[in-house]
C-alpha cells in the first residue's frame, strides 16, 4: 500500500477542517460554496481510493499521530468499515450541499452565508474524525465539535423558531456528551488507558479478575445512554422534530442522515473494541437496546402519524429508523451489527434524499411544508417527487428497495431465539404498517391532481437538484437490488473492526 493511501484518513480530516479555516476570509457565499463542493469531491475520491485499496489488500491502517507509539500517542485507524462510512459520509455531504444549494442561498442571510459553509466543513471534519479515531477522549472532543457545528447549522436560518429549536437541541446534546464524558473518565480511572485497543484489553482483564464490576456496568450505561441521547433514539427524540422542521434543507438532510449516524458508529466502535459484544450480551445491555429500538420504532411512527407537517413527519420517521439500528445493536450477539451498519448506510442515503426532495417540493409552493398545501406538487416538480416516492417506498420496506434489505437482515439476526424472533418480527411488521400509513398518504397527496389548485406547469426544477436526486435515486435502487455484496462486505469488515 502506498504512502499516500496510508495517509488518506489523516488528509481527509485535515482537509475538511482547513477548508473551514480558509473559508473565513472569503466573504462571498458562492465562493465558499465552491470550496466546500470541491473539498467534498476530493475527499469522496480519496476515500473511494482508500476503500478500494483496503478491500483489495484486506489490511487495516493504524496511523500514529505525530509518530508517538501506541500507549502514549493518539491513533487513527482505518479498516474497511471506516472507509465505507467515509465514502458514504462524504457522498451524502456532497449531495446535500448540491441539492439544497438554492435553499441555502435563500434561507441564510447574505452576509453570513460564508459562515454557514465554515460550520458545514467543520461538521464534516468532526464526523470524519469520529469515524476514524481510535482514542476515546479524541472522540469526546469531536463529539463536542460536531455538536456545536450542528447547532450552528440549525441556527443558520435566522428565525425565532430556529433559535428555540437550537436551544433545545443544544441542551439535549450537552446532557448526552456530559454522560459520555463521565463514562470515559470512570473508564480511564479503572483501566488507565484511553486508546480503544488498550481499553479493550483493560476491560477484558477487569472482567476476568472480577474487579470493579459495578463501576464497569455504570461506565457501559453512561457511554451507551450518552450516545443514545445524541443519536435521538426513542425517549430522547424530542429535539429532532423542532430542529429539522426549521432548519434549511441541507442542514436537515445532513443532521438526520449523518450526524445521528456518527454517534451510532462511535457506539458500535465502543461496543466492539472496548466493551466486547460478549460483555454487552452477558450484562443484558443488548436486551435493553433491543427493547428501546422496538418501542422506539413503533412509538415514533405513531408520533409521525399525527403530523401534517411534512418535515416534522420525516423527522419523527428518522427517530423511528434509528430504532431499527438500535434493534440491530440489540441483536449484536447474533450478527445484528451487520444489519445495524447496513441500515446506517440505507438510512443515510434515503433520508438525506427525502429531506432534499421535501425541501425542494416545499420551495415550489413557497416554503409551505404542510402536506395539504403540497397536493399535486409532483406535476410541478417531477424529480423531487420521484425521489421522495422512492425514499418513502424504501422507508416502508418494499422489496427491491434498500429499506427491505436491512429489515431482512434484522429478522435473520434474531432467528436464534424464538421469543426474540417473534418480538422482532412483530415490531418490524407493525412499524412497516405504520410507516405505510403515513408515507403512502403523503405520496398520494403529492401525486394527486387537485382541481382547486392551479398547477404551475412553467415551473422548472433546479438542474443541480435534479441531477443530485437522479444520481441518489439510482444509487438507492442499486443498493436495494445489490444489497448482498454490501452486507457481505460489512460482515467481513466487522471481523476486523
Amino acid at each position, binding site marked *: 500500500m502506498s504512502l499516500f493511501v496510508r495517509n488518506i484518513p489523516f488528509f481527509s480530516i485535515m482537509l475538511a477542517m482547513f477548508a473551514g479555516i480558509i473559508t473565513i476570509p472569503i466573504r462571498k457565499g458562492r465562493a465558499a460554496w465552491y470550496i466546500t463542493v470541491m473539498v467534498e469531491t476530493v475527499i469522496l475520491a480519496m476515500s473511494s481510493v482508500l476503500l478500494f485499496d483496503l478491500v483489495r489488500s484486506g489490511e487495516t491502517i493504524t496511523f500514529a499521530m505525530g509518530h508517538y507509539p501506541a500507549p502514549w500517542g493518539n491513533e487513527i485507524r482505518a479498516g474497511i468499515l471506516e472507509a465505507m462510512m467515509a465514502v458514504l459520509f462524504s457522498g451524502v455531504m456532497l449531495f446535500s450541499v448540491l441539492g439544497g444549494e438554492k435553499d441555502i442561498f435563500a434561507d441564510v442571510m447574505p452576509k453570513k452565508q460564508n459562515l454557514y459553509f465554515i460550520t458545514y466543513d467543520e461538521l464534516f471534519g468532526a464526523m470524519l474524525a469520529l469515524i476514524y479515531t481510535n482514542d476515546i477522549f479524541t472522540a469526546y472532543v469531536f463529539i463536542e465539535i460536531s455538536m456545536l457545528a450542528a*447547532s450552528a447549522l440549525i441556527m443558520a436560518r435566522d428565525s425565532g423558531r430556529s433559535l428555540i429549536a437550537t436551544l433545545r437541541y*443544544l441542551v439535549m446534546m450537552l446532557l448526552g456528551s456530559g454522560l459520555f464524558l*463521565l463514562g470515559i473518565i470512570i473508564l480511564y480511572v479503572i483501566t488507565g488507558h484511553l486508546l480503544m485497543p488498550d481499553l479493550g484489553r483493560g476491560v477484558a482483564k477487569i472482567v476476568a479478575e472480577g474487579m470493579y464490576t459495578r463501576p464497569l456496568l455504570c461506565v457501559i450505561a453512561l457511554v451507551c445512554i450518552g450516545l443514545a441521547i445524541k443519536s435521538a433514539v426513542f425517549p430522547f427524540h424530542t429535539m429532532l422534530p423542532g430542529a429539522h422542521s426549521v432548519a434549511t434543507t441541507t442542514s436537515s438532510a445532513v443532521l438526520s442522515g449523518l450526524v445521528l449516524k456518527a454517534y451510532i458508529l462511535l457506539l458500535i466502535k465502543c461496543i466492539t473494541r472496548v466493551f466486547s459484544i460478549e460483555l454487552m450480551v452477558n450484562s443484558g445491555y443488548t436486551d435493553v437496546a433491543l427493547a428501546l429500538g422496538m418501542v422506539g420504532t413503533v412509538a415514533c411512527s405513531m408520533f409521525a402519524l399525527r403530523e401534517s407537517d411534512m418535515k416534522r413527519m420525516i423527522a419523527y420517521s428518522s427517530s423511528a429508523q434509528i430504532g431499527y439500528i438500535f434493534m440491530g445493536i440489540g441483536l449484536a450477539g447474533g450478527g445484528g451489527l451487520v444489519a445495524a451498519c447496513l441500515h446506517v448506510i440505507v438510512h443515510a442515503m434515503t433520508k438525506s434524499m427525502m429531506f432534499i426532495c421535501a425541501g425542494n417540493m416545499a420551495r415550489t409552493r413557497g416554503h409551505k411544508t404542510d402536506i395539504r398545501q403540497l397536493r399535486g406538487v409532483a406535476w410541478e416538480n417531477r424529480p423531487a417527487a420521484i425521489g421522495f416516492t422512492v425514499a418513502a417506498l424504501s422507508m416502508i420496506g418494499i422489496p427491491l428497495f434498500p429499506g427491505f434489505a436491512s429489515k431482512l437482515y434484522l429478522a435473520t439476526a434474531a432467528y436464534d431465539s424464538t421469543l426474540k424472533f417473534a418480538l422482532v418480527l412483530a415490531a418490524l411488521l407493525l412499524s412497516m404498517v405504520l410507516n405505510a400509513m403515513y408515507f403512502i398518504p403523503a405520496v398520494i397527496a403529492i401525486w394527486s391532481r387537485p382541481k382547486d389548485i392551479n398547477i404551475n406547469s412553467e415551473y422548472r426544477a433546479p438542474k443541480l437538484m435534479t441531477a443530485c436526486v437522479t444520481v441518489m435515486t439510482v444509487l438507492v435502487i442499486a443498493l436495494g437490488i445489490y444489497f448482498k455484496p454490501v452486507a457481505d462486505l460489512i460482515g467481513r469488515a466487522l471481523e476486523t473492526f
Partner: protein
Amino acid sequence: MKDILMRLMDNYYETAAVILFFIGFMTLLLHRNIIKKIIGMNIIDSATFLFLASNGYIEGRVAPFATPGVAATVEQFVNPIPTGLVLTGIVVSVSVSAFSFALAYRLNQRYGTLDVDEILFLARGGAQ
C-alpha cells in the same frame, strides 16, 4: 452508617464533585433563565473536571517536571494525563459556553427576555 460516612470523608474530592454535579444539574433543569442554565452547565463541567483531576492526584507528589541533574523516578510524580484531559475539557467547555451565550443574546434580541417559558409563549403567539 459510620462506615459509609468515613468512606465519603476519605474520598472527599469525589464527594464534593458529586454534590457539585447535582447542584449544576438542578440549576440546568429547574431554572427558567437561560443565563442561569448556562451557569448550571458550567458547574456540571467543573464537577467532572474536579472528579477527573482528583483521580490523577497522588498525595505528596509533584507535577512531572524533571530537574536537570536530579534522577527522576516514577514515585515522585502525579499522573499528568488527567490534568491534560482537564485542560482539553476546559477548552471544550469554554467554547460551548461562548456558543450558548451567543444563542442567549440572539434570543434576547428577538424576544426581549431571557426567560425560557416567556420565550416559548411568545414564539407560540407569533406562530398563530
